[in-house]
């Protein structure tokens, strides 16, 4: 029983993390039909920026609790700087091109950003640590479930995931801009004809998507050693989650993350030797039963 509870807790924590890294990817795809491979780099940028900001914060001798504000600031900075630069400077010239071309464009961007990160931060693994070994990961203390100790930071992950998902769902369903966005998702040309500023919608969507990638990186940074290449690992996972849920679907990403997280945690606890395979097993089963993912909407066919 206690092991079952451990699987649930581990699974939910991991699912939250998966959802945070995948939600920006599915949002951008849903609106812009761009499979943004550079999402992984934006995630890495968020992590590296967090390390730099937190290190500056700690070396300034400020209260360690402020490091959480630095994580948030890093995510916002990545969103507000990298998002607009990439969208205005590159992607806006590519709209209307084939989806495959756009994948290649964002892949190229991914390679460029990976090298840029290497140029700026070097190849040594970095981590966030204060003068006395403080880290946002352990500052909040621990909680105990089923005889296992977990840092409370895990609850932050769960909270952020729930809040992000809730906020996006609310914004899409209840606000004016959300409804305009849904119209753009449904048909870009008709929306434009009806007077919706499609360019601005894309701009805002991409910036939010980039910011979500930054949030993922910033929240991950305190728990890992931040190293070049971390973006490549994450884009594969995020892509698997998004495909399981149905490309472009917000509830799909949430359910996909939850399934993958729980299956993986169960694998780790009961059959560690199949852990590597578990995510792809889920993906294969889902795609056999529903080739377009769990929450794929009916495709509008245009002539």
């Amino acid at each position, binding site marked *: 029983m206690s092991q079952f509870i451990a699987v649930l807790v581990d699974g939910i924590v*991991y699912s939250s993390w998966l959802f945070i890294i995948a939600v920006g990817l599915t949002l951008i795809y849903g609106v812009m039909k761009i499979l943004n491979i550079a999402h992984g780099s934006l995630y890495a940028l968020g992590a590296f920026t967090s390390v730099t900001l937190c290190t500056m914060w700690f070396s300034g001798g400020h209260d360690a609790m402020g490091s959480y504000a630095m994580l948030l600031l890093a995510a916002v900075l990545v969103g507000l700087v990298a998002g607009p630069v990439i969208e205005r400077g590159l992607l806006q010239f590519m709209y209307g091109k084939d989806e495959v071309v756009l994948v290649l464009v964002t892949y190229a961007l991914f390679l460029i950003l990976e090298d840029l990160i290497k140029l700026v931060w070097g*190849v*040594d693994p970095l981590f966030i640590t204060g003068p006395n070994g403080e880290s946002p990961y352990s500052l909040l203390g621990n909680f105990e479930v089923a005889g296992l100790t977990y840092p409370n930071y895990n609850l932050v992950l769960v909270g952020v995931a729930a809040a992000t998902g809730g906020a996006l769902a609310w914004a899409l369903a209840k606000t004016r801009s959300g409804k305009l966005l849904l119209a753009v998702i449904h048909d870009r040309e008709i929306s434009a004809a009806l007077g919706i500023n499609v360019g601005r919608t894309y701009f805002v969507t991409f910036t939010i998507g980039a910011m979500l990638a930054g949030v993922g990186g910033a929240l991950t940074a305190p728990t*890992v050693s931040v*190293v*070049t*290449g971390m973006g490549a690992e994450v884009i594969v996972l995020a892509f698997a989650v998004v495909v399981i849920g149905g490309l472009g679907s917000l509830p799909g990403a949430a359910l996909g993350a939850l399934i993958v997280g729980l299956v993986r*945690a169960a694998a780790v606890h009961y059959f560690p030797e199949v*852990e*590597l395979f578990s995510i792809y097993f889920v993906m294969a089963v889902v795609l056999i039963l529903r080739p377009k993912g769990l929450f794929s909407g009916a495709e509008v066919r245009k002539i």
Partner: protein
Amino acid sequence: MLTRLLRVALTGLAITAVSSAPALAQQKTSIKIGFVTFLSGPASGPFGVPAKLAAEGIVESLNAGKGPAPYQIKGIGGLPVELVVIDEAGGATKQVSEYRTLVQRQDVDVVIGYIGSGDCLAIAPVAEELKKLTVFFDCGTPRIFEEGSYKYVFRTRPHATMDAVAATMYLLDNRPAVKRVSGINQNYAYGQDSWNDFEATIKAMKPGVEIVTSQMPKFGAGQYGSEISALIASNPDVIHSSLWGGDLEAFMLQAQPRDIFKKSQLVLVAGEPYLHRLPGKIPDGTIVGARGTNGVFAPDSALKRWLVATYKAKSGGLDPNYPAYSVAQAILGVKAAWEKAAAKKIGSATPMGAAKNVKEEMEKAYAPPTQEEVIAAFERNVFDSPSGKVHMNLGKGHQAVMGTAYGSTRFENGVVKVGSIKYYDADRVTPPEGVSSLDWIKSGFKRTK
């Protein structure tokens, strides 16, 4: 008129080209080493870049004639050394084509390189095909010379079997009552080999131990929450890990706040290079190794002090880690073999008294040794390195054998120190010639076939 002039000029050029070509081939002015190491990807920070810094520092120092005894001769055999550095990232297939480029287009004299075991396994047969002296400096898999036999391939560091064997000896010395054993290793060649060796060794040395869980997270996974829960839940006496680099650091960051190490003894097979990076994050009493008598385990010697000084100057004050020691072993191994071959030629020429062709004989004797002569000198050679004496004893004289060491950590004045160091002789931790590592472990560590 113009065409005649042109023809004359062209003929002239052609003659010069023809006449100068053999001269170029005969007079060797430098030794070109192709050096392959990770410059990007997760292995670059902890291994690849330190290895490159060490190689550059060592080559500069040798070229300036500043090597300590017995390496005072400038460069290699008096010829300056030139490095051609290649990135190891990209997988075995890419490395094979990079290797071909190095050998066939860059025309290097020797290739030194490869950290990834997969890369070494792929390169060895190609080296044989292209007939190019190739020295593996860091990869650990015992399979290279246990499953193959090579003429042109050498490895100047011991293989990884001794890591597991010595770790188990050290563990059982300190904690003879161990019963419940667990592991967390990366799911790729090195992680699996390391765990399999450890599992077999501890089962052979202490019958009755129970393997309670073996976690195999993906290479570069980053998130270890579930694995740590599973480890805690299995209540192990010992946690074996060959994690390295960012993965090791992430695991320590996530595991340490969860009180896992209060009950369980941690063994980090390749932990030594990370100690200075994780103050306060490595529990006291953690058993650490450096895959040989490298780093803190290297006995003091002029060569060690030379490597430390050379590396510090290159890296901005850092101590060399074990890949840096491995590089030193490889370059000095080639230098030792080369100079031994050269000395043998001069010694055996002795045209004294034989008045015929004295000049020609002397010229021949003092010409740089051929690759075949260097290989003959390299086989079963014994040479000095910053980590101690290296014996090329296994794999028909192509595989180095050395002792190793393990120690326990303690946190003191903000620094992680290694104490209670124990040394293990090579023949206690390495299988004899002709016996595969796993067979040797299962046989109960027999010295004879």
